Structure formats: structure tokens, C-alpha cells
């Protein structure tokens, strides 16, 4: 099936630019007439993941494939990797530094929220090498 492929760089040192990729994808999904609930889920999950990349991994890139029945997203970074994925998935667990928390981020809800809003989520991570986060949001348009 045909797909629209998009790639975005996620800058690592600028909070104000996190959310650019999710914003651009949201605009495209609306133009396609995607189901509003699915648009919301994609936008929130991507935004959380972008913020994660800025906080923990100094950025990376994000590949988006839009199909008529689903959106697949890969968010890839060359950050420190996640030592304990199970722990990171727990609501409220965070390793974000204080300066990040002061901005209102780092509440330990990033990965749990991403899981909540997506139909499928897979993490490939290696310490010192980086993390690949695969997300799928299915939709009945």
C-alpha cells in the first residue's frame, strides 16, 4: 500500500523546537481528512517522544509513514540508551534533571503516555549507542 514518507530532524538543545515534527504531521493528517481521535493520539505520542529526545538524547531524527489505515513513526536518537526499560515505563519514574523539571517536563509520564495513546509501541535501546522508538497508531478512516 502506498505511504507518504516524511522525515524530520529533532534538534537536541532547543526545547522551543520540540513539537515541530508532531505539529507538521498533525497538519498533514488534517489535510488528509484523518479521524480526529487518531490525529490527536499521533500528535500527543509524537510530542512526548520529541520532548524525550530533547531531554535525554540531544535530539535525533524522526521518520513518519502515513498509510490510509495507520501511522507508523520511528524516533531514533544516539543518546545514552535506557538502562531499565521496564522501570522507564512506570508512571512517575523519571531521570530528568531539575532544570528540565522546572520547565514543567520530566514528570515521568512520557513513555506511559506514549503507550497509552498508541496501538503499538516498541523500544530498541542499547547503552551508549542510542534508542529507537517505534510507534503505530491505527485508524479507521
Amino acid at each position, binding site marked *: 500500500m*502506498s505511504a*507518504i514518507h516524511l522525515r524530520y530532524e529533532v534538534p537536541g538543545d532547543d526545547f522551543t523546537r520540540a513539537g515541530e515534527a508532531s*505539529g507538521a504531521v498533525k497538519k*498533514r493528517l*488534517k*489535510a488528509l481528512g484523518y479521524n480526529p481521535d487518531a490525529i*490527536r493520539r499521533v*500528535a*500527543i505520542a509524537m510530542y512526548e517522544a520529541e520532548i524525550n529526545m530533547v531531554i535525554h538524547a540531544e535530539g535525533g531524527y524522526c521518520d513518519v509513514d502515513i498509510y*490510509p489505515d495507520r501511522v507508523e513513526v520511528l524516533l531514533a536518537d544516539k543518546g545514552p540508551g535506557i538502562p531499565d526499560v521496564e522501570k522507564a515505563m512506570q508512571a512517575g519514574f523519571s531521570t530528568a534533571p531539575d532544570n528540565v523539571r522546572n520547565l514543567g517536563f520530566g514528570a515521568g509520564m512520557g513513555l506511559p503516555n506514549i503507550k497509552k495513546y498508541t496501538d503499538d509501541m516498541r523500544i530498541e535501546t542499547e547503552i551508549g549507542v542510542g534508542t529507537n522508538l517505534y510507534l503505530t497508531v491505527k485508524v479507521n478512516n
Partner: protein
Amino acid sequence: MQKYFHSVELEADKCCGCTNCLKRCPTEAIRVHDGKATILSERCIDCGECIRICPHRAKKAHSSTIEEIENYKIKVAIPAPALFGQFSNLDDIDIVLNGLRAIGFDFIFEVSRAAELVSEATRKLINEGKLNKPIISSACPAVVRLIKIRFPDLCDNVMPILAPMEIAARLARKEVKNQTGLPDEEIGVFFITPCAAKVTEVTSPTTGEKSACNGAIAISKIYPALTQAMEKLSVLEPIANSGLIGVGWATSGGESAAMLGDKYLAADGIENVIRVLEGLEDDKIRDVDFIELNACSGGCVGGVLTVENPYVAQARIQNLRKYLPISLNHLKDEELEEFMWKGELEFSGEGFRLDEDIFKAMDKMEQMEEICAGLPGLDCGSCGSPTCRAMAEDIVKGIAKEGDCIHKLKESIQHIYDHLKNTI
């Protein structure tokens, strides 16, 4: 019936085809074709930004004239509170209301009275937990239209209560009917409006219910006659009947302050409004119960049909409110149901969709990305579309062609020139 009515109109002979309005429109609803601006009806929210920016005064709002009130036996004015901020050295709202009486209105009912009822109704509904949080105010019609066409997920968060203008019109009409026994068609209710979006709201209400207003007269249109009449007043009849809550609705933050809580947010200016709506949609804005959004900077005092600088008007409103009681209008139990919307705010995003069919839409988007990549990315607007991306979209939709891009054209002329030079 026309599907979309807009109060914003173009006077074609004044339009010189420049790109000022094109670049300013927050919903990318304007195109310049054959040297004239046109409005894509399904995208226009009547915010009036194009009227504000046009240096040639080619854009205007189609509001009622003062002569139209003569079509009715009883002439009713319902002035927006923003009107009270338009006059220097005004210390009594009654001077304005008596002035309206002097220029031909028989009965005056301030919209700020209805605003106090809306504030009370909102507080009540919030306390009862009956609304989807965060609640987005429905008072600014440009904002409601924006949500309707661009933010499908937020339609259910818009407060389902009629705007103060509509409630004021209904209450005034009812009172006049009770006093005079006249039928509806002999009573003409006119909103004295600070903005174009309200003019649209009178003719074509967002909720689909017929408006109790017969017309909307621009503050700027009524201003000269009104100021003259105000100067000539010798006796002042007490008419004013609203408190500081109602009058405060004229400026941004006034409606939120009337919530008497602290978990609220008030944003004004259309770009800021869009940013807040985007944030809400992405769940980035949390811990807020009530959201007041005004399309114009400063709130209604910043409306494009006002005469005074919005910040000056704001200062005057603050001054006028100082000695007013908190609220003079209180909701009767049976009124709440009456003031609620009868229908729901239904999303209609067709203006931004590439195609009804998702497969065709995807094909178009692919073409669009390809075309966009080949455009210079200057977003200059010379082609008649507001950005290169919008132009790519217009090409795919068949309303523009690549040759409209002057940079592309220049490139091809250069090629021909180089080619000719080499052959000679």
C-alpha cells in the same frame, strides 16, 4: 441558501492585488488571482484581520446602516460593552445609552447585562461538573468558527451557551413585546458591534438557530452621530443596568475574571489564540479549567469596527468599572436551559481537506510534497497563494499553476536566455 455567509467583503475596484491581506490571513483563506483578492469561503472565520491590514481600504465588513432601523416600529439597540471605551472623559455609561436613545432608538438593553448572566451560568455549569474541561468560551464568534473548521477535537470543549449578544437580543425583544404587545416583525433589534464576526453571527449563526437580532451596526458607523447626540444631552435618564462583571467583558481577561476562580487562561490576538488551541489539542496545556479566547488583540475593544486604540479603550473601561457594583443581573433557574445551545458544534474541515477520498487525498499530498520541494520556499506571496506550501496545495487542487511562481518563471527565462546565448 448560500452555505457560507461572510460579512467580510472586497471592493474590487479598490483592490490593487498586493499581498498584505494574503500574508496576514490566519487561516490562509485569501488568494490573489488576476490582480484581485478573493476569499476561500469555507476557510474564512470573519476575524477581520484583512480589513485591518488593507492599506487601500478594499476590504470592509458588510454591517447594517442606521437607516435600517426605520423599517421597524420599535427600534432596539443592544450595545456591546466595547462601545463604552470609545469616548474620552466618559464617567457615566448612561451618557452613551441616552445618546443612543437620542439618535433614534426607543429601547436600550446593554449586552453587558446578558454577559453577567452568561458568567453566572458558566460558573453554575462548572460547579455542577457538567462541562468538558477545559471549557473554551463561546463568546468570540471568530474563535468558535476557527475551532469548527480547524480543531475537530476541541469542538466538544466549547461552552454550549449562547453568546451575550444573542441572549441580550432575546431578552430585549421579550421585554419590548411585553411592554408594547407588538409582534416580532415590528420590533427591530440592532447590535452595536465592534467586529465583523458578530455581523456574520447575526446573519448566519454558528449554532444554526435564527438570531433574535435584525442587524448589526458598526461602532465606527454610528460613532459620529452618537458623539454629537451625546454632547447635546440635557437630561439623563437612568438606563444602565450592569455591573463591573458585565462591562469587563469588553476587554481580554474580563470574562475569565468573572469565573471567580484561579484556574483560567485568557489569550487575545488571533495568532496567540491559534497557539493556545494547538497546545490544547496536543495536551500541552493542562491544569486550566476555563479558557477565554478573543480573536482581537485586547479583546472586543480591539475589534476592527471600533474607532479607539484598544489599549486606550481598555484603560477607559477599567476606569468606568471602578465605581460599579459587581453584578446587577442574576440568572433565573428556568433561564439556564433557554440559554444553552440547542445543537452541537459540528466540525466541518472540508476547507482544509485535499480530497473526500483518503486514497485520492494521499496521492494529492504526495504530489504536493514533490511540488513544494521544487518551489523556492520564499513564501513571498507573488504567485497569489500565501506560502509556497499553500501554492503547492493550490496546484494540486487545480486553482494555481507552477508558472504563477515568478521565481520559477525567472529561472526558465534565464534558461532560455542562456540557451539562446550559446546558440548565437
